[in-house]
């Protein structure tokens, strides 16, 4: 009986560890992509990604599934870490640095990517964050809404506006 209780007690943290491990494996690249898309600085993105996972790991036992999705919870922590980094720098994320994996513009598609990158730089940080959450991190509208603290429909509307603005910026550049 006592052994069963001990096993039960030990099983709880093990569940949290397993859940976190799964979350880490499924979200590592997505978190990095979101942070890098927001900060536009690969070195800072690595630092912030590591910090975000570190914080999430410390708080893993406090995660309550009734209050939201694990990915939204993780991206909320990553968002705070990224915004702290932006505050620390005392400046907003800039598009001065190129994404590390952007291919060189040797053909038409490369030229388009350059235009797209420049157009992203013209967006307001809030709009760029939405683009990063949706297309870099792969979050659904519901998860985005949970991360930025608005309703799902509001998140969808904001996202649509951001995409429209991005397209207009690209068209203007062409």
């Amino acid at each position: 009986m006592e052994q069963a209780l001990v096993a039960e007690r030990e099983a709880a943290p093990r569940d949290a560890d397993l859940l976190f491990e799964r979350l880490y494996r499924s979200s590592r690249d997505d978190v990095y992509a979101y942070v890098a898309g927001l900060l536009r600085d690969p070195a800072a993105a690595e630092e912030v990604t590591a910090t975000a996972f570190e914080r999430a790991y410390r708080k893993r036992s406090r995660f309550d599934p009734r209050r939201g999705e694990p990915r939204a919870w993780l991206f909320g922590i990553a968002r705070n870490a990224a915004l702290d980094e932006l505050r620390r720098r005392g400046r907003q994320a800039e598009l001065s640095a190129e994404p590390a994996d952007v291919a060189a513009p040797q053909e038409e598609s490369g030229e388009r990517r350059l235009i797209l990158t420049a157009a992203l730089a013209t967006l307001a940080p809030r709009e760029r964050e939405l683009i990063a959450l949706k297309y870099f991190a792969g979050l659904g509208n519901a998860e985005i809404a949970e991360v930025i603290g608005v309703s799902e429909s509001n998140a969808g509307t904001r996202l649509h506006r951001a995409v429209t603005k991005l397209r207009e910026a690209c068209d203007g550049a062409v």
Partner: protein
Amino acid sequence: MEPFRDDNELIAELLALRPSPSPTFAATLDERAAAGFPRRSPFPPQRFAPLVAKLRALPPRRIAFSAAAAALVSVAFVTAVVIAGGSGTETGPGPRGNTRGSGVLGDFQPIEGAKPPAAKSEADAGTASAESGRETLFEGEAPAIPDELPTKPSAANASHRDVERSASIVLGAEPGDVSADAARVSEAVHANGGIVLRSSISDGSAGHPGASFQLLIPSTRLDDAMASFAQIDEVRLRNEGSLDITAPTVSLGERLKESEARIEALLGQLAAAETEAEREVVEAELRGERRHHAALRSRLTTLQRRAHFSHVSLRIESRAGSTTPGGWGLDNALHDAGHVLSVAAGVVLIGLAVLAPLALLALIAWLARRIWLRQARDRALG
């Protein structure tokens, strides 16, 4: 170059732009994840870093339990310190044994020996004090000896001493023996020529059986009577006291003689009075002096009765609920438990009074920081 034809084309390009972590970073992060994300610090590891890390890793529930246990231990410790510090209660009926005391009531001396001698010089005051002193003596406490006792030469040189004696005795009896013991007390009183002034006997299954007596015993038979009482049952407490009332007795006697002489003189004046007016004046003085004489005689009689009879307070206590011969039983345990709980509640109350404002301030500070941080992060997005 052609512009994007639609949003899908734009989104496809966006997806292609998605940043990916470098293999080196990914490998490093995986290693840290496998190691449980050890803290990175720009400072050298501190002495208590492992302990702090272990505390941080504890689940909140376990921290709450530990904090509650620590608070409980603190309350218990402070309660023990407070109780041991002197605010405890007596748990027993008092020490067994005999206490004897004696005193001398001098002229114009207040009865309580602890008080400084009063400056009054009238005999009436001294007599009144002697009379009021009976109340103290009859409580069963032995009177303390006064520091200074001014005594008239006539009282100091008196060949006969008038001493008032008093005593109290507490007997312990089994609940079923209370009635029998009370009857034996009455027998002993009568056998020694005493009088039962007041008695009260509680018997039966409900409540605590017991009895109390207020007795008058001839002073010459007091020792015999006390010995008889002591044979009835276990003596839990015995007090005896004495008070020398020679001075007020002698003083009153002298004043009584003076009053008698004054009355004799007034009677002579009355016989010699020639006019009606003179006779009326003398008669008025005579009436006043006779009243004074009667009052003095009454006081003297009272003092003499106090010297001739001793007041004895006798109480029979049952041992109901007692678990030990010392008398400390369930009632005392309940009383002490209540006391301990009340002290503990007081400690908790004081602790809350100190901690609650601090906790409130901490909560306000935490909320303010949280709001400020949220706004600062919001501003970081522009």
